[in-house]
Structure formats: C-alpha cells, structure tokens
C-alpha cells in the first residue's frame, strides 16, 4: 500500500491523477481521528496532514481560510485569541474513539455539529467556500470568502458530511462568530420522559434563546449564553417554566457539561456499539424508551432530544431503524464499533432507491471512477 503525503495542492492533483492512471483507490486521511466511522476503505492512503496553515483570518470580517489539513486545535486557538469560535460547536471524537486531534477538512467532511446546532446551525451552515481536487484529478473551487453568497450551486454544503467521497479538500473557508461573554446552565433532575419532553419544548419555544437543550444523567439541561444581565434574565424566564427544582450550574461546570454532551463522553467508557441518531426532537425520549424495552440501552440526548448518542450491546441496525421510522423518521449513523461489526452493518442510513440512485449520480459527477473513499458511506 502506498501512502501519498502531499505538501502542496499541486501534489494532491498529482496523487489523484496517479491513482487514476494506475487504477488505484484512495483513502482520504487527515489526522485519522474519525477513520473508524463508516466502512473501511480498501485503497492507498492520501494523507493530507501536511497541508497545514491558516491562510487568512480577519475577525472583523468573520471569515477564516485555512488549508484543509490544519489541525482543528490550531484553528480553535486562533479563534479563541480573537474571542471568536465556530458557532456550530464541532464534535470532537477524542472521547468516543480514543483519537486525538482532527483536521479542519476532516471536520467539514464529517459535518458533525454539537449542542449549539439547535440555535446556530450545523457545519454546513457555516462553511463558505473551498478548494478541492475532484476524482477526475482536477483542482477546482466553489463558494466564496464572504459571509453572504448565492453565486452558483452551493457545493460547499455538499462537502459537509460527504466523508471524502466527492473530492479531496485542500483549502476551506468558514464563517466565524464572536464567543458569548458568559454562559450558565439550568439543570432539572427527576422529570418523567413526558415532563422532560414538554419542558424542553416549552423552553425552546420561549424567548429565552436557549443555545443547548439536552437530557443526560437523568437531568434536563438548558444552556444560556450572552451578556451576563441577559443570561440572568433569561434564566428566570426558564425557571418559571420548569416543572421541578432547578439547579444552576456555574460557568466552569456548564462548559464541561456541554463539552461532554457534544462528544457523547458519558458513554465512552462502557462497552458496546454507539450510534448517533437524528430524529424529530420531541421523538427522542420515546425512541430511546422503545429501544430500551428490547435491549439494555443507554443514551445521552442533545438538540432538545433530536440527537441521540445511543449505546447498545450490539448494533440491532434493522430494528433501530425500524423504530426510528415509526418515530417520525430520521437517520442513524454507527459511530463506534469493532471492525467486524462495521463490515457487517450499514453504518450510514440506507436510502430509498430513487434517493440512492441520485446520490450515486452526484458522487459520479465528482468522482466518475469511484476512486475517492469508495464505499465509505455504505
């Protein structure tokens, strides 16, 4: 197996053209932090970790451009220095998968957002543009480097969650936003599923501008962010809606709590497979109850219940997806399992035939020979 380690965009073109010429397939690799999500790719490695560096970052413009292999930790440090952040709170796989840093390109290719997704949108809502090399071995660009742009098809969104199956990202541009000045979290323990579902729905439907809404460890959690006076005022709004005793978590505890929810950390140390399930928010607890009736399940629910980190002793993929369909639909992605299980399980949500056919045509529009991460999203 060959490992291509390009330092320049031109070398990425060379690598893809070499693969085309020699009929090889490529596994696109950043820092490998999410390499065990989806089907294993049988091919040569195209290692982008050498394509590093922030190319431009102007906080007042709210725009950052970096090479795709730049470690996210570097980006996050630069953002923090300017008192900004990625508002979508990218998922960090460290806790669940035992890996270290991820690249900016890998973050985009996975498209996994954290708790603030319910307020600020996902990775796909903040990517502004990119440069990449298609499976045709051609360097191309799409999108722009300004925060508002509708010129041509929005290929940038298509890159989010494409898991390297469409193009090899070489440079990406993101929208950045100011970091909130303060945060606080309300925790309400001991609610029934029905009470908790109704409480979080009421909170999200209130003018409190909730930026995190989760169920974890038997508690309903609501995060508020912004200037201190506003956070205090909105906390009072939410307390009035709470059907039980409210504990206030201080800033440090709040931060740690939401980092753990973002990463599904509470499930990390336990054996079993871990799914990430997206469903209509009010269906989350009911779906967990339904699957728990059939197997010992544990769950952390984010996004008002619309995102479930679900721990099961074995995948039960058919049954889980059947129950999901009965609870209003959505999709389930296998995030953690052993290699044998991954091979035997449809890791990404199977699509109905017409959608699968369209997806295949879109893939072929970027990668006609099927050389980029083939089969990864099966």
């Amino acid at each position, binding site marked *: 197996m060959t490992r291509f380690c390009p330092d320049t965009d031109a070398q990425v073109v060379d690598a893809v053209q070499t693969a085309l010429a020699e009929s090889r397939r490529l596994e696109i690799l950043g820092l490998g932090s999410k390499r065990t999500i989806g089907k294993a790719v049988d091919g040569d490695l195209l290692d982008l970790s050498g394509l590093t560096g922030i190319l431009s970052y102007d906080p007042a413009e709210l725009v950052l451009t970096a090479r795709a292999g730049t470690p996210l930790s570097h980006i996050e440090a630069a953002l923090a220095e300017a008192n900004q952040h990625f508002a979508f709170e990218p998922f960090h796989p460290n806790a669940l998968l035992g890996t270290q840093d991820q690249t900016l390109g890998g973050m985009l290719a996975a498209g996994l957002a954290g708790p603030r997704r319910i307020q600020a949108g996902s990775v796909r809502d903040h990517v502004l543009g990119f440069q990449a090399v298609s499976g045709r071995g051609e360097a191309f660009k799409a999108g722009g480097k*300004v925060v*508002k742009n509708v010129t041509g098809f929005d290929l940038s969104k298509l890159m989010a969650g494409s898991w390297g199956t469409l193009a090899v990202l070489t440079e990406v541009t993101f929208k950045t936003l100011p970091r909130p000045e303060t945060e606080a979290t309300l925790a309400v323990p001991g609610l029934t599923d029905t009470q908790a579902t109704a409480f979080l729905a009421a909170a999200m439907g209130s003018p409190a501008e909730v930026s995190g809404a989760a169920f974890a460890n038997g508690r309903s959690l609501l995060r508020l962010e912004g200037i201190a006076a506003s956070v205090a005022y909105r906390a009072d709004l939410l307390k009035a809606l709470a059907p039980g005793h409210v504990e206030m978590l201080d800033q440090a505890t709040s931060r740690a709590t939401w980092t753990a929810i973002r990463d599904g950390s509470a499930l990390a140390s336990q054996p079993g497979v871990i799914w990430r399930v997206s469903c209509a928010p009010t269906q989350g607890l009911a779906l967990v109850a339904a699957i728990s009736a059939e197997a010992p399940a544990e769950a952390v629910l984010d996004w008002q219940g*619309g995102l479930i980190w679900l721990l099961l002793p074995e995948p039960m993929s058919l049954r889980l997806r059947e129950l999901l369909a009965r609870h209003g639909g959505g999709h389930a992605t296998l995030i953690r399992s052993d290699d044998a299980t991954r091979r035997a399980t449809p890791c990404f949500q199977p699509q109905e035939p017409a959608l699968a056919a369209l997806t295949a045509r879109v893939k072929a529009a970027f990668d006609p020979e099927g050389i980029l991460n083939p089969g990864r999203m099966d």
Partner: protein
Amino acid sequence: MTALPPPNPVSEAQRQQILTDLRALVPGEGVVSDPISMKVFESDGLTAYRQMPLVVVLPETVAQVAGVLAYCHRNAIKVVPRGSGTSLSGGALPLADAVLLVMSRFTRILDIDYENRTVTAQPGVTNLGLTRAVEDRGFYYAPDPSSQIACSIGGNVAENSGGVHCLKYGLTANNVLGVELALIDGTVLRLGGKHLDAGGLDLLGVITGSEGLLGVVTEVTVRILRKPATARAVLFGFMTSEAAGDCVARIIGAGIIPAGMEMMDRPAIHAAEAFVQVGYPLDVEALLIVELDGPEVEVDELLTRCRAIADATGAVYERVSTTEAERTQIWAGRKAAFPAVGRISPDYYCMDGTIPRKALSQVLSGMRELSAHYGLRVANVFHAGDGNLHPLILYDANKPGELDAAEALGADILRLCVAVGGVLTGEHGVGIEKRDLMPVMFEKVDLDQQVRLKCAFDEGHLLNPGKVYPELCRCSELGRMHIHHGALPFPDLPRF
C-alpha cells in the same frame, strides 16, 4: 442584454399536441395558452427582460407536477419553474420553447408543530404567510426578503433568499429543514424533515439556491423561531462612508451581532427622505441603522455599547427608538429605498454583490468613478453587516442605449466586487442577469464541476436552461475523462 438560448422550433401542430397532452395531465383551468392570459407571466422582477412562454401550466397536485415533468422529460421539452415571479435576476424568465410551470396554486399550510418549531407548507405559500400562520402564538419565520408579501417559500428555496435580518438569523438555506422535490423525470423525493440533519449527502443544501435548475420543490418544512421579546433600532449619521464602515467593523469586532445593520449613501438617503419624510438627516454622507433584538436588558446594554462605538468612530447624528412606532419610522426610509429611487428615476437597476467589508471605501470610490464614466447616477443601500451591496443604477429605458449602459455599469460594479475578493450575488441569484459574468468569478474547471452536478439531476438540460451557467455543454462531453494509463509516476510527489 444577456441572450436566451436559441429556441427549438415548435410547429403549430406540435404546440397543439403539447397543449392537448398537458390538458389531459392538468384538467380544468390549469393550462393557459392564449397570448392575453399568458402576458402576465412574460417577465419576473427583472422587468427589463420579457419573453412569452410556449404554454403556462398551473398544476394543483404533486402528482400533476410529476406528470408534467415526466411528460416534458419524455418529449425533451424545456421547463421553467416559477413561484410568485418576484426574482430580481430573471430566474423565472420564460423561454419561447419551454413550459412555464407555475406553482402558485400550492397555497396550503400542511402542518404546524410548535413543539418541534416547524411549519410544513406547500411551495406557493408566501414568505409572510408562514409568519402569519404562527404569529398568534408568538412565532415567526426569520428570512425576510423585501418582497415577502408576495414571494413564495418555494421560490425562496430556489433562490436561497435573504433579507435584512440574515446577518443574525441566516438565509433560507439555514432555515429549511426538509423539502419534497420532483425531479425532471417525475421522480418525487423527500430530503430531510423535522429532524435537524438530513442524512446522507447534503442534497437539501445544494437544492437550496439552485435557481430551478435541479428540481421543482413541491413541499417545504421550515424552522420557526420565537419572536424576540423586544427590538430597538438606532440611526447613526456619518460624514463619510468610511467612518460608517469603520463603525460596523468595530461593532462586530466588539462581539456584537445585531439583528440588522443597514447603510445608505447620500443619494439613497435623499431619495428615501423625499419619498417618506421620516426625518432622515440630509447633511450626512452615510446613514447606518443598527437593530438589536432580544430581552430588554440585553438590547439596552448592547445599544449603549453600539452608541459608544458610533461616538468613537465619528457619528454626527444619532436617533434611538424608544417605541415600536419610532423603530418602524427609522426603518421606513430604508424599506422604501427602492420605490423611492423609482420615484426620482424612470427606471432603476438593482445590483447585489457582496464584498469583504474592509473593501467598502475602495468599492464605493470605484463606483463613483464608474458612475461618472457611464454618466448614470448610482444610489447605494447596503446590508452592512454581511457586506452585501445593493447599488441602484438610475436610468431611463426610453432613452436609446441607457439600458445597455446601465447593464454595462452593473457588470463593471460586479467585476469590482469580485476583484476585491467578493462575489457576484449575495441574495438575488444569478438567473439570466449575471449569467455571463460567472466566468469573472469562476474558472472553466469550476463551472464545469457545477454543471456536472446539474447533469446528475437533469442530464438533458431541460430544467430552466439558459439560467446561471453561460454554456451548458452536453453532459456526455463533460463526463468524458482522459486518463494517462501507464504514464510516468509523478516524480515530485512524496510517497511512502
């Protein structure tokens, strides 16, 4: 003017056959073919362009939409989809040899779910109609294009429409959770739903803003938001647009994202004040409206901070709203800017470039030079927070050559936007209007890749051809690849 693709010749006998076939698919009043009735459809919001369609079809059911598309696909007949026809870029401009597929009969709200904060609606529901459906419970739909009384949500999806509040609340793409979509061959698909992430490739993301080239949206699920508790606006006047631009940069630099930040230059201020008399100061070069929304304590605090910044950047005028009526009045001039300019000039042409905000003064001075060169006045309104410029070019279509000059000036302004690192369109779309400027922003390889995506949805280029992309090569040609089998390996590529 941008040329439409040469129409395929359709004989009268062929046209009669098409009408007969379409009437079988859409019975009743749904097929309109006489010239007088079709006249209202001959243009959209870009009224400089007019073209009668082959026939207008107004289906009432998704099955009819799918049936018409499948019929057109089988018979290689072009289709131009249309919502309310408010596009400012000619996205819904008919073609002489195309069926105009009008979605205006799809006006039902299908589902309101306050617990998940979603509304599911048919595509012909107006943007404002979504808000009207939920406002009694204190909710609203955030994107607010200025045509919101008339424009449809299906059209908003096609154009990825924005509005003055999208700095804080996003464009259409950021507020749509799911669609039902009919492809050109009549296949009907669902993308997304009430769950937040659609799963699989983000086809929903690429459908949004695809300007009717990829499919016809037959149902939309949007997220709704709770109305902010309060909103207040403040109006600042500056002696230079540079100072106003500096104020905007410093507000954002201070970590404040206002709900809206709008700038107007002197010609726009004067036109607006003459039209609506809201007391705008006439002795300043730039006006900046900053709107903050949220809980009262937050709005008050941030307003104080913004006022201090404006003070430090040389604001010479300030007016703060203390009542809803005063807030409305501050906005009234800005919201009336387009018709106000329409009052002082027989015609105007609205541009829509986005620039990095730091290039504002460079672009404004470049625009002044271009304006002098072409001998046409330009008034500027500007979504200052996100760098989206709306230069309004004043011209008189009855004077020979002025429309061409206005288009040439507009094109030069957009070239200038791209030259400083910006883009051709921030929210109005490419349509027919900016189609031939696409190569200014994109290389051929970039455009070819976008057209290949088009081919994945519509291989025959039947949906809205002639819009967005200057040339639509045959998909088979675009798909062809030349692989150097057995070529020498690339010597400078690190391999291990």
